[in-house]
């Protein structure tokens, strides 16, 4: 009897537990239907690897590749970057004209429509940009609008407590439905070429009227539109019938699948459950070509890896130390490290930009010259001439939550061998990326630390101004040199593009001479694909060009 009575309690507890789970299992049928709807590539749909975007899918709030991947597909900006050359071509804009490099008149093509059927007008752009810049909207890319006149009023910068005095930027004026004017705070000849960055995308009415619904299923004017979006799991995109631009999709849609790990995605790719994978796990790199029968590409991307010296610390910045900094750069055997540790997925750096710019865009295979050539004898000589490492040794800081340890140790090892001292350089891990970045932005570094830059748009200016101009938004080493500042300002105001690029390169040469940052290597973009798809290429941002992919 006793047993039977207690059994009642157990059953009771179990019923409560089941009831609790029952509420949540009611949506099972729904998710199963979705699974059916989104399976298979036999219907002309490309199944591609995806990472969960870090932020809500708002153009001015997306600063990482996975969210950017979607925005690229669903938006057509005033200008778009050619996937092969990186050149900014007019797309949504009919013309962008200026007479003084400061006031621009932008005409939009007539009859453009968002995928929900509403027209793309000049206010679609002006409202979107004003929204992105307004500080209370907390958009991570707000600083992209900083060149526009009146930015300070909507985004007071210095004092964190300051309130915006206006909701719109005075530099943006709507003339008519298809024309608007932009006044910049100062002359900037290449400014229109920035407009391909997705922060400058137009936004439909729904974004402002029903924000939550918009975020659940963003609407754009690009080649694709979103058919369904299960946050954290998958997104299905189909061709946008209202799209009239030049990159019409050559497939019937794209299914982006979020994976918990690259290894699983790679297994899926091998077994035909996935079509396009743009991050191959490092462990699989040595045999990726044979696994996939050569269906693999590896090409330079707009990412440069470097390490920075704390130029705010006199120990590293006092006169004479430039020799030590140069010596350290020459003590690194970049070729061996990129071959052995990265399996050729990095290319030794020869300047501070990226090969994706092309020679016409400002990339140079010779600009840094001997400063980045491995030369143990000269390196040792330079370091000794400059007075040796401060305190006789250095550390190289990195964040331990990403796979940086291997190359940091290899770089240190290379320096140690040159100096004939096993303890001259050691790696210095910091636990998390957030902590690491906090120390850097607060200027607390006493020793060199790893740094890197992924371009926002394929222009040489993006590789220099934010990083090496005095007070630049990502000038982590707090480097400052008047010559560099002047050259960059001259270049910005120069209407002739090729002359501007020469000026930028002069600034770059000066930075190399001072060596506040040691260029290491360019990161490559890679992709592997299944036998079911063809014509897989990547653009300058190392994102697959989905519109060109065909399903066999």
């Amino acid at each position, binding site marked *: 009897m006793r047993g039977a009575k*207690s059994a009642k309690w157990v059953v009771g507890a179990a019923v409560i537990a089941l009831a609790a789970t029952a509420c949540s*299992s009611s949506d099972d049928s729904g998710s199963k239907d979705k699974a059916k709807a989104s399976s298979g590539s036999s219907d002309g749909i490309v199944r591609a690897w995806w990472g969960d975007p870090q*932020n809500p899918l708002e153009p001015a709030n997306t*600063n990482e590749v996975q969210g950017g991947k979607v925005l690229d597909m669903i938006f057509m900006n005033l200008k778009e970057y050619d996937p092969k050359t990186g050149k900014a071509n007019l797309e949504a804009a009919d013309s962008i004209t200026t007479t003084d490099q400061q006031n621009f008149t932008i005409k939009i093509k007539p009859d453009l429509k968002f995928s929900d059927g509403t027209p793309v007008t000049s206010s679609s752009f002006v409202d979107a940009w004003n929204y992105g810049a307004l500080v209370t909207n907390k958009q991570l890319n707000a600083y992209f609008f900083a060149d526009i006149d009146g930015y300070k009023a909507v985004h007071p*910068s210095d004092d964190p407590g300051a309130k915006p005095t206006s909701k719109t930027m005075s530099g943006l004026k709507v003339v008519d439905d298809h024309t608007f004017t932009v006044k910049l705070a100062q002359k900037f000849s290449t400014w229109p070429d920035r407009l391909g960055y997705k922060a400058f995308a137009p936004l439909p009415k729904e974004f402002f009227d029903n924000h939550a619904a918009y*975020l659940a299923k963003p609407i754009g004017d690009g080649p694709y539109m979103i058919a369904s979006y299960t946050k*954290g799991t998958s997104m299905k995109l189909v061709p946008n019938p209202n799209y009239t631009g030049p990159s019409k999709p050559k497939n019937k849609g794209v299914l982006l699948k979020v994976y*918990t*790990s690259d290894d699983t995605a790679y297994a899926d790719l091998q077994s035909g459950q996935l079509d396009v994978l743009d991050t191959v796990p490092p462990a699989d790199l040595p045999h990726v070509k044979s696994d996939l029968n050569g269906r693999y590409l590896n090409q330079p991307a707009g990412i440069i890896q470097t390490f920075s010296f704390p130029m705010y610390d006199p120990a590293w910045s006092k006169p004479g130390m430039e020799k030590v900094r140069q010596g350290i750069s020459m003590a690194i055997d970049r070729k061996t490290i990129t071959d052995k540790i990265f399996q050729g997925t990095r290319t030794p750096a020869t300047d501070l930009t990226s090969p994706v710019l092309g020679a016409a865009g400002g990339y140079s295979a010779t600009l840094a010259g001997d400063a980045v050539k491995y030369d143990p004898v000269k390196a040792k000589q330079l370091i000794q001439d400059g007075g040796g490492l401060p305190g006789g040794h250095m550390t190289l800081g990195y964040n331990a939550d990403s796979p940086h340890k291997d190359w940091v140790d290899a770089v240190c090892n290379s320096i140690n061998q040159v100096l004939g001292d096993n303890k001259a350089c050691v790696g210095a891990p910091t636990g998390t990326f957030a902590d690491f*970045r906090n120390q850097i932005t607060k200027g607390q570094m006493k020793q060199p630390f790893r740094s890197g830059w992924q371009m926002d748009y394929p222009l040489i200016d993006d590789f220099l101004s934010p990083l090496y101009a005095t007070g630049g938004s990502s000038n982590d080493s707090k480097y400052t040199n008047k010559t560099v500042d002047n050259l960059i300002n001259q270049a910005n105001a120069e209407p002739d593009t090729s002359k501007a690029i020469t000026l930028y390169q002069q600034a770059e040469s000066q930075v190399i001479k001072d060596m506040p940052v040691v260029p290491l290597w360019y990161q490559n973009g890679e992709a592997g694909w299944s036998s079911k798809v063809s014509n897989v290429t990547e653009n300058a941002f190392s994102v697959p060009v989905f519109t060109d992919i065909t399903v066999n």
Partner: protein
Amino acid sequence: MGRYVIRRLLQMVPVFIGTTLLIFVMVYGLGDPVAAMFGDRTPDPATAAQIRHDLHLNDPLWQQYLIYMQHIFKGDFGKASNGQPVTELLGTAFPVTLRLTIMAFVIEAVVGIALGLFAGLRRGRFFDTGVLAMTLLVVSIPTFVTGFVLQYLLGVKWGVVHPSVGEGAPFKDLFIPGLVLAGVSLAYVARLTRTSVAENSRADYLRTAVAKGLPRRRVITNHMLRNSLIPVVTFLGTDIGNLMAGALVTERIFNIHGVGYQIYQGIVHNNPPTVVGFVTVLVIIFLGANLLVDLLYAVLDPRIRYA
């Protein structure tokens, strides 16, 4: 019995508050999450200040905890970094992990107890030695190794199953992940049952039952197994929580978007509300499972009483 249950439920309150406080302090102690949102770029000071203000990051930690608990009691677990409410994530992730856990639990209980029972009855024979050797092997191989090996062999090399679990994690896809997840526990269950059965087979009440002339089937199921299962049930009960939390590795290998995946995303994206919210619910599950185990004792063994 009723009073016992109520007392246990009341005891859960301080445990719940204590664990959430600990987790909260640990996660928020990791440092300012705002810096990581901007990638390799220096945060724009005005935007960063606005975000910090809205997330209450400028308040002292105890105040942040109070605000957080207030919201929780209103059913608001905060928002994940992509703007999705954490409650929505909980709603989609827990059923998935629960399915995986049920799959693993059934495999582990059924196969484990069966293996243990037969091994215990045939002590020292070939079958027994085989089970001991096999379980030793399983225990000594880490989960991720079995996971990757099975995934590679069955999914990639032989193409018998899909290497990853499809959207919505249907039961048919969950067999291999369930097996991997259950592996180590299954070995423990088998060994525990075997020892217990072996021990009880010499018990007085069992000899009496045999002497009374009861059929062997009845002796084994009603007398021997029921008494031998007490330590096994303890293990299985605590293992429910372990399976749910420990699914992290398995979920990652087989692309299952469950609890482990969401916690991992929360950590990678530096989003405390996700981590604290999920762990809080896991704590509740642990507490519930433990209570259930204690109550089951009384069912299995009439000598145990709660007052």
